[in-house]
């Protein structure tokens, strides 16, 4: 698309997009300044693999570099010329809670909203390996900042159309029979900048509002059973204890099927920014329904028509009608290596890898195209493949050095095939430059130029 054909954003949209582009640009600049980071200049090497190879090759020559400041989550330590010739850091010197290597610098970056309280951050998918997102890199979306809650003073109320209203302390919740589930949570706004033209440069920008954790908690069905449901009960309002007092109405059917109240994330208490001490988890449904800092569940016969389920998380189509209660996150995938702003050092072998996920169940097939969708071949799915969970795929590729367009296409166990952007827009239309904003799950295209540079394109 040529510049003059670009959509004319209204002021608010333009501000949002510009802020997002700026935030990503700042992050990229910072990553390139990091002397041995994945995007360091001048090598601009390509992801963790390249960084490790470069580090290994130059190991004996590395001088002792002490950075002015360690990356977030790391402790700066002097680097010996030869770690076999002197003792390392004393045991438990980290105070008993570990930190990551000072050589790892990827972080979430924040969308440049006007306030820092109603904002979001993106997971650096390009640096991720496996399927678990480190808790500290799990994407965030807050509507009133991150609540700081003393668990000894927090409780969960269950009331409304129930026989027996209940109040649970966090300790009570932890006494219930528990489950753990490794699953993704994705914000329905993931990719909102990408409807009408490629806007952000990196996969963190285009797809970083999805993350996978192992969540541990109590099935909501058990709590509802304690209270007993009255005839006619159909919806449950979930309310958070943050400054937005965030509320969503959830169909009772989902609450009884697989919803749970989580207190654990990746083996420890969930992080404050993920809703400490407890949050609602609705497997496969849009992230905003997983109410954080959960304090109240009200059973009702009707939905409450809260602000978030009327004016915000609804999908306005060109005919002026808006889809409401569009909960499920449909099958989606993206190649994370190679991806935007990386540079392949030259022709040869590369393992193309990425993530696929579906809110409706397991990923059953992942195809990769290296010619912009003209031909497809099956990629290898890393097992175990879990339902409603990031699934890692891998695809061996010999790059001939000619321009290529890489795409991935997921199929889930319901037979649903991830659509192209054109297919999606043909059905939903474009109501403004951001389309219907939410639920963009189209195939992503990365163009590899002859010089090896990778960029976000619509193909």
């Amino acid at each position: 698309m040529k510049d003059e054909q670009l959509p004319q954003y209204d002021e608010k949209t333009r501000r949002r997009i510009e802020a997002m582009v700026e935030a990503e640009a700042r992050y990229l600049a910072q990553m390139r300044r990091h002397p041995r980071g994945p995007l360091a200049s001048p090598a601009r090497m390509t992801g963790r693999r390249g960084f490790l190879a470069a580090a290994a090759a130059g190991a004996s020559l590395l001088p002792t570099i002490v950075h002015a400041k360690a990356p977030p989550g790391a402790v700066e330590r002097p680097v010996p010329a030869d770690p076999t010739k002197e003792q390392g850091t004393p045991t438990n010197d980290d105070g008993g809670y570990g930190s990551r290597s000072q050589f790892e610098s990827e972080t979430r970056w924040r969308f440049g909203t006007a306030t820092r309280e109603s904002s979001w951050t993106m997971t650096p998918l390009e640096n991720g390996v496996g399927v678990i997102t480190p808790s500290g890199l799990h994407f965030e979306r807050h509507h009133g900042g991150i609540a700081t809650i003393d668990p000894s003073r927090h409780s969960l109320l269950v009331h409304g159309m129930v026989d027996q209203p209940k109040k649970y302390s966090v300790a009570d919740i932890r006494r219930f029979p528990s489950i753990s589930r490794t699953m993704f949570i994705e914000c329905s706004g993931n990719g909102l900048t990408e409807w009408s033209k490629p806007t952000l440069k990196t996969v963190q920008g285009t797809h970083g509002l999805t993350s996978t954790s192992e969540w541990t908690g109590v099935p909501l069905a058990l709590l509802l059973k304690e209270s007993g449901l009255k005839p006619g009960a159909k919806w449950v309002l979930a309310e958070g204890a943050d400054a937005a007092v965030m509320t969503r109405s959830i169909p009772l059917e989902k609450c009884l099927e697989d919803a749970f109240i989580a207190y654990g994330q990746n083996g420890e208490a969930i992080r404050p920014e993920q809703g400490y001490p407890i949050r609602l988890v609705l497997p496969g449904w849009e992230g905003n329904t997983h109410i954080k800092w959960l304090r109240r569940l009200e059973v009702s016969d009707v939905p409450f028509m809260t602000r978030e389920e009327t004016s915000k998380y609804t999908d306005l189509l060109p005919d002026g009608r808006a889809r409401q209660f569009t909960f499920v996150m449909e099958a989606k995938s993206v190649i994370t290596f190679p991806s935007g702003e990386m540079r392949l050092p030259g022709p040869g072998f590369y393992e193309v890898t990425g993530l696929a996920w579906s809110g409706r169940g397991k990923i059953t097939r992942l195809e990769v195209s290296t010619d912009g969708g003209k031909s497809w071949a099956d990629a290898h799915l890393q097992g175990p493949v879990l339902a409603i969970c990031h699934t890692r795929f891998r695809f061996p590729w010999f790059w001939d050095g000619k321009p290529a367009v890489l795409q991935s296409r997921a199929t889930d166990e319901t037979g649903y095939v991830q659509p192209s952007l054109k297919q999606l827009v043909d059905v939903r239309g474009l109501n403004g430059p951001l389309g219907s904003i939410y639920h963009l799950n189209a195939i992503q295209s990365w163009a590899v130029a002859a010089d090896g540079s990778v960029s976000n394109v619509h193909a």
Partner: protein
Amino acid sequence: MSTLEHAVALAALLALAAGCAAQRSTEPPQAAYSGSKLALGSTPTAAELAHYYSYPADGRGLPPGSGSYAQGQKIYQAKCMACHGEKLEGTKIGDKLIGGRGTLVNASPAKAPVKTVESYWPYATTLFDYVKRAMPFNAPGSLSDDEVYALAAYILGEANIVPKGQTLNAATLAAVQMPNRNGFVSPDPRPDVR
């Protein structure tokens, strides 16, 4: 839990574990116990429950009190205008609250629809609920019910949805017909691409 209860719970767990051994793993994961009630937690008092609210579209549970356009205008100027603008037009921080009627039907990728309380929100009860729980941004939950009714009267008055002389209370707020009342469709029609 008494010793007897322990024994019963343990027996149930063991029976379940034995039953599961021959089965495929369950998905979604099931708790290891699904027997009778566990009698955990306590009973909240009526006073505790009275602290919480949320008002569905039929207005049930809306609190006593009322407010007028004129009262709302004063409160708006003192507590809302800094973020939402002198004419409710929105600023960098706060959403535009009025205008935008006729922009929702729009097949142009170049022009964005203008979604406001006036043009988009289907229920006036949502406005009351949201302002009461989360506004103003710098002091959420600080407004009295009378103040929230007054703000609703002012915003809906400026939006030409409610006459400026109309006082809003539980009954009149629930009766307000918003322009986009019928603009929402559910259930979810997806999968819509096949």
